[in-house]
């Protein structure tokens, strides 16, 4: 028994050492990349940050620093891409939001906006108010509050009407959460946000080199990838602006 315990402790110790050792290596490489950035050697800094990402590390500050570096290298598309990736991990970071807003002013085209009727606008605004996970959490909350109010109504005879009325209200909220949540989950699964990373991307009516060019997108424009066909990606910006572009011209956030 004693031997088994010692064995477990040794394995746990090795595992902990390897994990913390790897993190220490990451920190060292990150500091080295930061040093290159401070010295103005942005090419080296970007290469080191990219290496860290390629090793499987995911960190908001890492994406943020890479966004800064690409901006210094005048690669606006890559910069916005990495800031957007960082935004998923650091949604409230003021530095990040300020930099993202600033870098977007360098995009040479105006980001197209969908023209929507008031009810479409209402639907999309509510649907996008929460993330897919947010909607599921909201659904869990209203669902359990609904059954909670039914549960209380079984015992509190005097307040039964009040609890039941509240229950109806919660049932409506639950229905809304199911509706908007399922729409958001479907949208999240079907589409992926992306950023144009090449200087100019030709968007064609058909997925082939000789396809007619419908319009051009400049670096940094954000779009949605709806589907892929080999080396071609089908993009959608607005209801009347969509088409095929070579996938190398865009990168998924």
């Amino acid at each position, binding site marked *: 028994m004693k031997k088994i315990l010692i064995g477990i402790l040794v394995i746990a110790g090795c595992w902990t050492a390897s994990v913390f050792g790897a993190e220490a290596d990451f920190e060292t490489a990150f500091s080295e990349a930061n040093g290159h950035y401070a010295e103005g050697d942005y090419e080296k800094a970007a290469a080191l940050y990219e290496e860290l990402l390629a090793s499987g590390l995911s960190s908001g500050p890492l994406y943020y620093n890479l966004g800064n570096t690409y901006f210094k290298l005048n690669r606006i598309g890559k910069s916005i891409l990495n800031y957007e990736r960082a935004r998923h991990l650091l949604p409230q970071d003021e530095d990040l939001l300020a930099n993202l807003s600033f870098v977007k002013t360098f995009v040479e085209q105006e980001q197209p906006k969908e023209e929507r009727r008031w009810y479409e606008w209402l639907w999309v605004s509510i649907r996008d108010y929460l993330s897919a996970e947010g909607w*599921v959490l909201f659904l869990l909350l209203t669902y359990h509050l609904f059954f909670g109010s039914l549960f209380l109504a079984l015992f509190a005879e005097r307040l039964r009407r009040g609890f039941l009325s509240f229950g109806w209200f919660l049932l409506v909220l639950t229905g809304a959460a199911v509706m908007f949540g399922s729409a958001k989950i479907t949208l999240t699964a079907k589409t992926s946000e992306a950023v144009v990373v090449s200087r100019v991307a030709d968007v064609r009516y058909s997925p082939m080199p000789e396809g007619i060019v419908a319009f051009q997108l400049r670096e940094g424009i954000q779009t949605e990838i709806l589907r892929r066909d080999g080396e071609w990606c089908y993009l959608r910006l607005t209801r009347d602006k969509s088409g095929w572009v070579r996938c190398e011209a865009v990168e998924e956030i």
Partner: protein
Amino acid sequence: MKGTSATFCLIIGFVAVATFASAERAEVTVDIDKDQIVFGDSVRLSVTVKGIVPDTPPILPEFDDFDTRYIGTRMSSYSSVTVVIQGKTVEQKRTEAGSVFEYALTPKRVGRLDLPRFSFELAGETYHTYEPYTIFVTDIPEAQEHLLLKVSVDKENVYLGESVLFTFEWYFDRNIEDYSLTIPWYGRLKDFLMEDSPPNPNARQVQLILNDKERVSAEKETVNFRGKRYTVLRFKKILTPIGAGTYTLDPAFVRAEVVTAYEEPDRTRFFFKDYFDFAFEDVFGRGRRAITEWMMARSEPLSVSVKPIPETGRPGSFTGAVGEFDFQVSVSPGIVQQGEPVTVTMKVIGTGNFNEIQLPDFPEPPHFKGYAPEIRTDTSLSGNLVIGEKIFEKILVGRQEGAFEIPPIAFSFFDPQEGEYKTITRGPFPIRVEPGKGSAPPVLSVLPPEERKGKEIKVMTRDIRYIKSSLEPIVQEKAPFYERPFFWWFGFVPAPLLVGVTFLIQRRRLKLRTDIGYARRLKAFKKAEKERMATETHLRKGNAPDFYAGLSKTLTYFLADKLNRPPAGITADIVEDLKSRSLEPTVLQELKSCFERLDLAKYSRAESGTEEMQDLYEKVKQLIQRLDRVL
């Protein structure tokens, strides 16, 4: 035909087909989508190629009676496989479904028009069609009183690069059910750049479909015109010529299904189904059936003459701006510390082609680092003039102390009104860079609060914020929690189960409280068991009177509780009542026998043996158990 064997067939009807087969097993078919059209409309001609992937679309010959326009290429089912052979990437294409090249043939006149036999080249091979094809082009009357198209340009004689404002207006005084709007040159002007004019924010916007595919935002308003009230749809485009010459813009056409009258519905037919139809239509105000008629309107052709801008007198700083402009430059602040930014703001104001205006060039002072300029354009439409301003903001950062100077900055443009080049020069602008860190500490003075009011902190220039020094927080990429197994089971199943079970318990409790018969019936067996246990004590002691009294009470009270009756009313006669409950005759017989034996024992005072008591006890016990199951 260079080794190409071709076959052709023509099917009279809606489709004309020509089939070819080349040495590379290419299969080519030509078809058109209709053989009867209205003047102003187009026939769609498709060339479908299977077996090979041509690099360029076939070029069709000029037809006498038709204008030909290449629309585009599509592939209904296309896939490609990329393979790498000896380090070289080779793309293999599967083209079973074929490429379809589409052309619009617009007739030039009304009548029976022949599309003659024709030849075209494709991937180095020549293909011929075998027979001509006939297309009937009919006309419909123009309806000037109901439909009217007006197109105009603000200038017919312009210089190269000078903006022309094109205005399209469609007037109609009736409801329109359907329409087809054609501006033949829209989207394929080679010698003009076309862009949207600044929108009117106060106008109501609608979407128009042009040439069957283009969507254009148009302003909608109601106007009095020629003494009648018309709805007018209007959009404007800025055309900038990039080639000199005289250009004719072909007329625009509209074919519209115009509502000429309304027919009241026949409400005498009143079936159940019709009732709902009427009710629905009445609610939405569509109870009347529209009578429609197809009508057409066309605009006049337009002509624009573009003159080249003169070569003589062209200043070196001219970069293509054509219009009437003013040029302003400011440099702020004039005195900075080392490492602090200076903003050079150049503003071009006026009317003209703002898109062509480029950043006026100027050399950066020595020991200054310049950053990419921020460019803003703000234009609006004033009458037929595009007015606005274009602002360039360039940041310079002084790296060394000293007195410097930004040399004069010149902006040149061609003024089409006066037909000459103009140059506006601003500057020079002195800049003094003072020492940064390490200089003598400044003398501090106290600023009274009232003087501090209104002096907001202004951002002098913008740049990105600095990098972060810590990697934290490091996150693990993982799937959303709602995709994990059992999330939905654990998250959503327990709550309704708990409420359901609680509801059933509550309902049972309530019934026990309010339904006395139910409560007595439910508790009868337990109560009888308790009584029977007490009787068993008398049995063990051999106390016959108390045993019989107790056993009788046990059976009597059990039946009273089961049948919700007073105990006094339970006698051997109860057997007669129980016959209606479809009990087994043996049970009834047993019950009657038990009652009789108990009565006999209680009232005869005869001595009973222990065996008799034990036997009766067992019988009553079994009887109670059997009756509990059936009552």
